[in-house]
């Protein structure tokens, strides 16, 4: 009786992603199929311009689905109102916030918008969530600084804190480790890992830190020009998927160490 059917958080069904304008449709990738389950940490890797951001933006509803269906929590993405979707997923984008005049605390507090009243008044519970988001990302000392006063790396962590404050079961992050030093790169990825395993959040992040992603992710999505490989890192290494990521003349993947090296 306690046997629960595994519940997919995101499911893509024969998905085609790309850009649409009045005159033409540019397809970036097609035939995408995957199911991501609750509490999984998924690393999305691929060469520049392969469509990692497009995929994340399409799942977040920021770009139209060209063809196929995305299900979020078993409900088609199309059926969500923006506020309902804001309760399901939060995002960290590569773009900087438009205003740099916000304090860190104000910025992170904005993450509570889906839950607050018409003027955005914060309840005690909201304040607690904001505080723990700041704590988790080691940004509470920055709380009263303005965003133009902090470094790009610090801002990156603040943007992650904002997504945490939104407190959604699903978090999408587009290259969350850019601008970060080596310690914070590992720190952020470990934080994502803990959030996934302890709080049961489902996290999909794109990254260029392939070796770190191999070590930490439950499963990985490898985008190549031909297809998308989706499996555990171990199986992907065995199948030789990482070798096909980049031209072999310049860099080579070592299946034993899980690292790339310059040839």
């Amino acid at each position, binding site marked *: 009786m306690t046997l629960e059917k595994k519940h997919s958080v995101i499911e893509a069904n024969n998905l085609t992603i790309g850009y649409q304008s009045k005159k033409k449709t540019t397809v970036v990738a097609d035939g995408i199929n995957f199911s991501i389950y609750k509490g999984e940490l998924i690393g999305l890797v691929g060469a520049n311009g392969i469509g990692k951001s497009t995929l994340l933006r399409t799942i*977040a*509803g*920021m770009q139209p689905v060209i063809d196929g269906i995305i299900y979020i929590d078993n409900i088609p993405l199309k059926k969500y109102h*923006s*506020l*309902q*979707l*804001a*309760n399901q*997923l*939060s*995002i960290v*984008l590569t*773009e900087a*916030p*438009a*205003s*740099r*005049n*916000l*304090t860190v605390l*104000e*910025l992170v507090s*904005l*993450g509570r*918008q*889906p839950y*607050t009243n*018409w*003027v*955005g008044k914060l309840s005690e519970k909201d304040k607690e969530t904001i505080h723990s988001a700041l704590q988790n990302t080691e940004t509470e000392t920055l709380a009263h600084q*303005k965003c*133009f006063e902090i470094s790009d790396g610090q801002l990156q962590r603040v943007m992650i804190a*904002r997504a945490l404050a*939104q407190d959604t079961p699903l978090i999408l992050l587009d290259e969350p480790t850019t601008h970060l030093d080596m310690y914070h790169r590992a720190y952020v990825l470990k934080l994502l890992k803990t959030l996934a395993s302890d709080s049961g959040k489902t996290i999909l992040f794109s990254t260029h830190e392939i070796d770190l992603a191999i070590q930490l992710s439950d499963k990985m999505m490898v985008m190549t020009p031909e297809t998308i490989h989706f499996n555990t890192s171990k199986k992907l290494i065995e199948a030789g998927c990482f070798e096909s990521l980049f031209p072999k003349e310049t860099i080579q993947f070592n299946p034993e160490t899980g690292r790339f090296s310059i040839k």
Partner: protein
Amino acid sequence: MEITKTYRYYFSILLLLLMITFLVNISLGSVAIPFKEIISSLSGGGTSKSSWQFIIIDYRLPKAITAMLAGGGLAVSGLLMQTLFRNPLAGPFVLGLSSGASLGVAILILGAGTFGGFLGGILLSSWSLVIASALGSFLVLLAVLSVTIKVKDTMAILIIGLMFGSVTGAVVAVLSYFSDAEQLQQYIFWSFGSLGNISWEGLMILSICCIAGLILGFISIKPLNALLLGENYARSMGLNLKKTTLLIILATSILAGGITAFAGPIAFVGLAVPHLTRQFFTTSNHLVLMPAVLICGAILMLICDTVAQLPFSEYTLPINAITSLLGAPVVIWLLVRKRKLLF
């Protein structure tokens, strides 16, 4: 928690300043009236000379109220536009909103001659002036916004705003070539800007415009805060972008259009006041910023009007000239000191 306390302190200072500037504005004018008489007149006690009573109640009081409404309203519309366009240089004057309103009024005043006599009289009622002006600014804002969707470059948007200004100037020049001297004079006096030519009836219409615009502005406080992160983040936090954008555009065009109709195109208040306010209220939260900008705009306009009426002389300077003389150096000073304008 300490922060809210500081803001409460600032707000009480601002309100006090508003009261003082209001009283000073009413006390000073071409006719010297003792301060005691002013207080007694305002509190309903009457004055020792009936002409004083008339000057205060039918001229200075509506003028002071118009100044507060115009200053506060334009400043709030500037704040709304800076956040909507996410550009610190946005404002009703810079983006061509005032030019659009001018065009609406020019077509109305200068075109009214063509319809002649009776019809012209109807066309020139206060309401039609407001509608023409608000419609003009609404159309320009819509045009600027549709360009913004295509052109993401903020510089380009400002240049387009300037172009709208030139086009308006050209159309007005063509219109004035064909209209007679009387109408032309009427239009030119309007374009100097004036706070004093308003009746109590006109003031009521202006108040309705300002209150409607401000209500729309206050409804948008939460979406405005979300927009500070950019459109994509705002949408990801559940914001209905189309509805919000429409609300903010409506609010700004009602405010800028309505005020421009009565007070003429007033420059720099919309651009400078939000930046001045940010020097004291170091927050981006519109819940604090919007009322602060409203009061600061009102105070600044009262000061500008007090200067414009050249106390104890018989001359009154065009209000537009005074706001530019005060506003332009403020913007330059902020740019030089801070090296960049933030919003």
